[in-house]
């Protein structure tokens, strides 16, 4: 018995070159105790970042790829302070900053929290800062379905967003740039109901500051008459809610899955004739095909419908109207061969089909066809005069979360190559286009 124990001890006494420095750091840390658990979060990162980096270089082949993913996970995600990389909104350019993430569960209340504080800036003057807090009810639930709420406060400085005029027939050549500063504070709650239904509700304060246009082609084309809210600051209290539905309630690997999201919101302007109401509906369906041994990929279809109504004497500020074309301010891709923010109007209808297939590890191929249109009048919404795009690309995903997308799209007004990247899964919700 003694011999075996000694063998165990001796073999354990020599650590590998990556683990030995980590062990020494831990030993020093232990001597200078006690530490708060918060301080320990940072210590763990201080130890694990160099350790996981070291492990990359002592491996080869696929093992090295996996070790690199390990390093990325430690470096960019989890509790503690991390660098944050990726764009802020389309056109912001590559942005970098810092984020602090923390998950916590209450010992006295049936609540769980995931919080994030983040600040990012890009080389061309875009920046954002704020925080958000996810809250889950964690009481006794036989089927593990819980109330989920989100509180967030965010500020965005977006100095040069493209604007091509309103409507489905705006011209690419009429591109102007406008700046927008926006502060959002509010919260929403999602309550699960039986049979896959949810009821949602939200209240948000919204402050917008917009300094007018900087014309690239002809500033005289954009006037207060055809661009509501031009140069006007607005303050809103927005409230609303909706019903969502998912099928099947318990996720399945193959076959069809569907989700429907609906929302109705009232935007009450604190001053000026800018109050309005908006109805949003999003239908998504996915069909995953597979033979007995091989996954053949997933086909998905998405339909989005937005309809807005302004009471007599009111108008919807152009910067709160949704866009299609390239990627919108929420980082949603529609009509991907067009320029970002290309078509803007209060109402829209889009239909998208995508095919996605995992080819190796975290890499998946993507093919898509988008059609859609915007309309200044509600009566113009329909499946006529739709614009369309085709495209292909690839996605890098960890778990099922895409962290990077790259695609090439064509049709419409030419081609458009785009990449998106985000290292922080706890990143902010969205700026104005969230509505």
């Amino acid at each position, binding site marked *: 018995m003694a011999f075996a124990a000694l063998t165990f001890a001796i073999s354990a006494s020599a650590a590998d070159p990556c683990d030995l420095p980590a062990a020494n750091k*831990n030993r020093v840390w232990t001597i200078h105790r006690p530490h708060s658990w918060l301080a320990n979060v940072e210590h763990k990162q201080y130890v694990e970042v160099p350790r996981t980096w070291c492990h990359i270089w002592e491996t080869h082949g696929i093992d090295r790829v*996996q070790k690199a993913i390990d390093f990325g996970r430690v470096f960019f995600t989890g509790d503690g302070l991390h660098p944050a990389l990726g764009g802020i909104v389309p056109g912001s350019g590559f942005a970098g900053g810092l984020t602090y993430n923390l998950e916590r569960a209450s010992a006295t209340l049936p609540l769980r929290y995931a919080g994030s504080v983040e600040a990012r800036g890009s080389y061309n003057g875009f920046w954002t800062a704020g925080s958000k807090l996810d809250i889950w009810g*964690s009481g006794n*639930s036989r089927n593990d379905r819980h109330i989920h709420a989100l509180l967030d406060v965010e500020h965005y400085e977006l100095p040069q967003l493209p604007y091509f005029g309103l409507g489905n027939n705006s011209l690419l050549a009429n591109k102007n740039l406008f700046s927008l500063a926006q502060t959002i504070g509010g919260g929403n709650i999602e309550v699960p109901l039986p049979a896959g239904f949810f009821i949602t509700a939200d209240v948000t304060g919204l402050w917008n500051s917009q300094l007018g246009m900087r014309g690239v082609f002809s500033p005289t084309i954009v006037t207060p008459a055809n661009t509501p809210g031009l140069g006007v600051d607005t303050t809103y209290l927005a409230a609303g809610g909706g019903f969502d539905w998912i099928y099947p309630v318990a*996720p399945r690997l193959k076959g069809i899955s569907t989700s429907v999201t609906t929302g109705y919101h009232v935007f009450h302007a604190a001053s000026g004739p800018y109050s309005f109401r908006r109805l949003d509906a999003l239908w998504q369906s996915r069909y995953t095909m597979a033979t007995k041994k091989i996954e053949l990929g997933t086909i998905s279809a998405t339909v989005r419908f937005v309809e807005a109504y302004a009471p007599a004497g009111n108008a919807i500020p152009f910067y709160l109207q949704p866009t299609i074309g390239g990627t919108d301010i929420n980082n949603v891709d529609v009509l991907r061969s067009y320029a970002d923010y290309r078509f803007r109007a209060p109402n829209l209808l889009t239909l998208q089909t995508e095919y996605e297939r995992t080819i190796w590890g975290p890499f998946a191929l993507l093919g898509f066809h988008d059609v859609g249109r915007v309309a200044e009048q509600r009566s113009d919404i329909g499946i006529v005069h739709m614009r369309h795009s085709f495209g292909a690309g690839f996605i890098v995903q960890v*778990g099922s979360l895409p962290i990077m997308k790259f695609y090439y799209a064509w049709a419409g007004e030419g081609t458009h190559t785009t990449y998106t990247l985000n290292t922080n899964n706890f990143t902010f919700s969205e700026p104005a286009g969230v509505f």
Partner: protein
Amino acid sequence: MPAGSDNLKHIVVLMMENRSFDHLFGYLKLENSEIDGIVGNDYANLDSTGEPCRTTDGAIYQGQLVADPGHDVDDVYFQMFGVPFGTPAIGDPNMSGFAQSYEQQGGNAPDIMRCYRPEQVPNTAALARHYAVCNKWFSSVAGPTLPNRAFAHFGTSFGRLDMSPVYFSGKPSIYQRLREAGAQGKIYYYSKQSGTMGLTFLLNNQSDYFGLWGDFESDCKSDRLPQYSYVEPPYYDNGPVIAADQHPDHDVRAGDNFIRQVYEAIRSNDNTWHSTLLLVVWDEHGGIFDHVPPPKVDHPDGFTSTAPLYDFAYYGVRVPALAISPYIEKGFVSQTLFEHASLPATATMQFIGDPKAEAPYERERNANTLLELLTLDGPRDDLPDWSAHPVMLDPTAVSSSAHDAAQLHLDHVNEVHAVLQQRDPVLAATMDPGSVKTEGDAAQFVAKAMAVIHPESTEPGTGVRP
């Protein structure tokens, strides 16, 4: 073969996360003295100030283990042997380093010794009372999640101790072996987000090996379960679903309810129920105290780790485990030694052939199978009493604080004394191993000696009785 195994067509494994036997099941000893648990205040570790932290109740559902207790190989070594990784241990594990290990993680030392009362986990406790508790199920590796789960999938971790799953690729898992034998095995993730990190590398693009929670429910209801199913609980808070894996600091109630959901899914079809063995087991102890020293591995598989150097000489810390089947006697307590390699070994024995001939790796070849628990000739359909309030036994009547020391303890005392004679002959002369009669005597003897043998390490505590 046991009678019930003739009817066994399906084995379902639900592997939860990071709780020790004492922590979840310990207080069941007050209902059934065969269960090797605790009665409260009967074991202790010393914290860094020398204060004893005793096993007590008072574990709460969440918010108590805010700092994740250490469970990498270096943490577990310290927990088991009471000396830092890299320091030669004397003798067998004494389970003395949990409190100080948790302090290293920034945690509150007494919290690592806290345990749940059965009424706090009513579904798990009801199943434990109604079916079988495995008293001696040890995690396969004294380390973290993935190498332990690798033992469930492959019967070995291929000498790995780390959390990079790439080493699974191309290795003969129980799922592939079942297919080659004309049977089927499947891993049911709760959702796509919930797949154990990177395990899709395991069987990439072979969708027939995978399903999600909805598929499991459907397969149970329609009696289409494969021969072997491995269910993964939700690991993350996501949308309306919160993590139900019981990993600290996830809400233990969510896991308790999920265990019942799995059980009820199987019971949704009588044919499924009458032909299924459900095994609920935790992957490792997660750094939480357990009082039973893991034994040495009798049949090592020949793999060793080089980074860090490690020879897999001992099993990991004991974990809770339930065996549930209509062919299991009510309230049975198994004394057989199981480890995670017992899972593929059981599937191999039932659906392929004798593991001694059919299993590819030594640990699985020699692992005990769960089939011996299926002793009833016919199925029983009585339901667990989910709201039971059983009569507790008198703690003093079931306490073994004055039990005679086992040979394991006496061996340990003699080994420690031999080392002490070299380090401090004067003190050694004052300590007589022959005077050790009870477990408590052994604990005090070892603690006193270790304080001299390893003065440079943190103050040794004792995992046996103070």
